[in-house]
């Protein structure tokens, strides 16, 4: 399979702190690619580099063989990377539908003059947004919340809205930062089903998560970071049995064990 997203020797340094240290990564089309690692290992920072919020101190990121690091984040979004945030960044005072509508930004063309004269472009765009917007909400199971203000929703639902909004970009790859945080096991489970469904539909997903059950059962490939460095990479089983990972991440295993049963 072709490499969709590639990182080559990426590092990020804050002052004296090496947050990401010479990391290589290859995400193939159709993957659900997991990134795990202890707190402060540099996972979110790595995402921020992939999506253009940070420029790497060293190395580069490639999307379909094209170098994207150094581009501003909105350009990268246009190239086809959509993301969610670790600490939810919804438009809290807007309705769920409006949140999704803004997600269509890159897929529509209306400019100031189109808007003023209600040109053909404008009408087309509004039609697309309306139809597809509802379709996405339907798909994610949020249609009953369409008119609710996003900030008032429970934590777990907000996470879903963020995913729906990212889907509106029709991205080539979706980066999810701890999507299951704050969800109970049942909800985590349904999120997992949802992700697998997306995968079925041909989406490529990269996900950061601390819930091992979630990661082990959904990802087909896992990258483990510690102190910014890659300490291990491979299939869930390979990672699970890696001593270094056990020591740094799983601890005595009470929780990691849950991943297997």
């Amino acid at each position, binding site marked *: 399979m072709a490499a969709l997203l590639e990182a080559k020797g990426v590092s990020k340094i804050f002052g004296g702190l090496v947050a990401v240290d010479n990391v290589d990564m290859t995400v193939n089309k159709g993957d659900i690619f997991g990134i795990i690692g202890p707190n402060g290992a540099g996972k979110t*920072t790595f995402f921020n580099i992939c999506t253009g919020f940070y420029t790497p101190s060293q190395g580069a990121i490639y999307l379909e063989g094209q170098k994207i690091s150094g581009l501003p984040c909105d350009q990268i979004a246009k190239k086809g990377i959509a993301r969610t945030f*670790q600490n939810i960044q919804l438009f809290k005072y807007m309705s769920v539908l409006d949140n999704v509508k803004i997600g269509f930004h890159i897929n529509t063309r209306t400019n100031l003059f189109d808007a003023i004269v209600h040109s053909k472009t404008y009408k087309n765009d509004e039609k697309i947004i309306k139809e597809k917007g509802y379709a996405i909400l339907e798909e994610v199971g949020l249609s009953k919340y369409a008119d609710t203000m996003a900030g008032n*929703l*429970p934590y777990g639902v907000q996470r879903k809205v963020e995913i729906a909004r990212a889907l509106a970009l029709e991205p080539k790859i979706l980066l999810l930062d701890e999507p299951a945080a704050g969800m*109970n*096991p*049942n909800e985590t489970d349904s999120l997992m089903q949802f992700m697998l469904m997306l995968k079925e539909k041909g989406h490529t997903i990269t996900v950061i998560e*601390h819930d091992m059950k979630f990661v082990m059962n959904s990802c087909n490939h896992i990258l483990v970071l510690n102190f910014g460095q890659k300490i291990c990479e491979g299939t869930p089983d390979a990672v699970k049995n890696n001593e270094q990972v056990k020591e*740094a991440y799983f*601890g005595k295993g009470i929780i990691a064990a849950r991943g297997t049963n």
Partner: protein
Amino acid sequence: MLKVENLVVNYGYISALRGISFEVKEGEIITLIGANGAGKTTTLVSVSNLIKKESGKVIFKSQDITQTPPHKIVKMGMCHVPEGRKIFPELTVYENMISGTFGNPALSKEKINQLIEKQFTLFPRLKERRNQAGGTLSGGEQQMLAIARGLMMDPDIIMLDEPSLGLAPIIVEEIFELILRIRENGKTILLIEQNASMSLSIADRGYVLENGVVTLTGTGKELLVNEEVKKAYLGA
């Protein structure tokens, strides 16, 4: 120690809590479980009096604290580690921890230094980052800081709102061990967790919240084996 009677809280038209009652005795670990939006956070927030209550009563150390301002409640020995971290982004890690001691003026300088060292051994990450601004920490580091800040005041009762949120499994383990250790020191704990199986397994008693009302109570063990609870919160 803490007694909540018939608590009702509304957000505008929405009723988040519709008459919740529960009790926390000294030295107990109590856990509240429930789905997203069941009202767990709202319960803690209204106990700390951060939002307006419609009706109901909160009694702490046999004093009515229903209308007591939050900072006074804290000074009575109640610590609340809020959902979503809420650390001070522009203060350094060290200053954030110092700010935790405001709730307990009785602490001496030595005691404070001791406490700081204690948190640092608990979360070595924080020690490495002690002069970094709180806002630039990673998500999990912020969560550690929030817990450490809460522990700095050396409270009598500590209310933890999803303390394991965003933490690596190894740290989650430590947190749970820590909770047990805190209890051994004679403190009381009110815990909210998504990971119901873990929290119930260490809890003395648990309350199940559903849509703003308590639907089930029992000891941790009882709830762990309860079919309904199993189905709804523990994951099949």
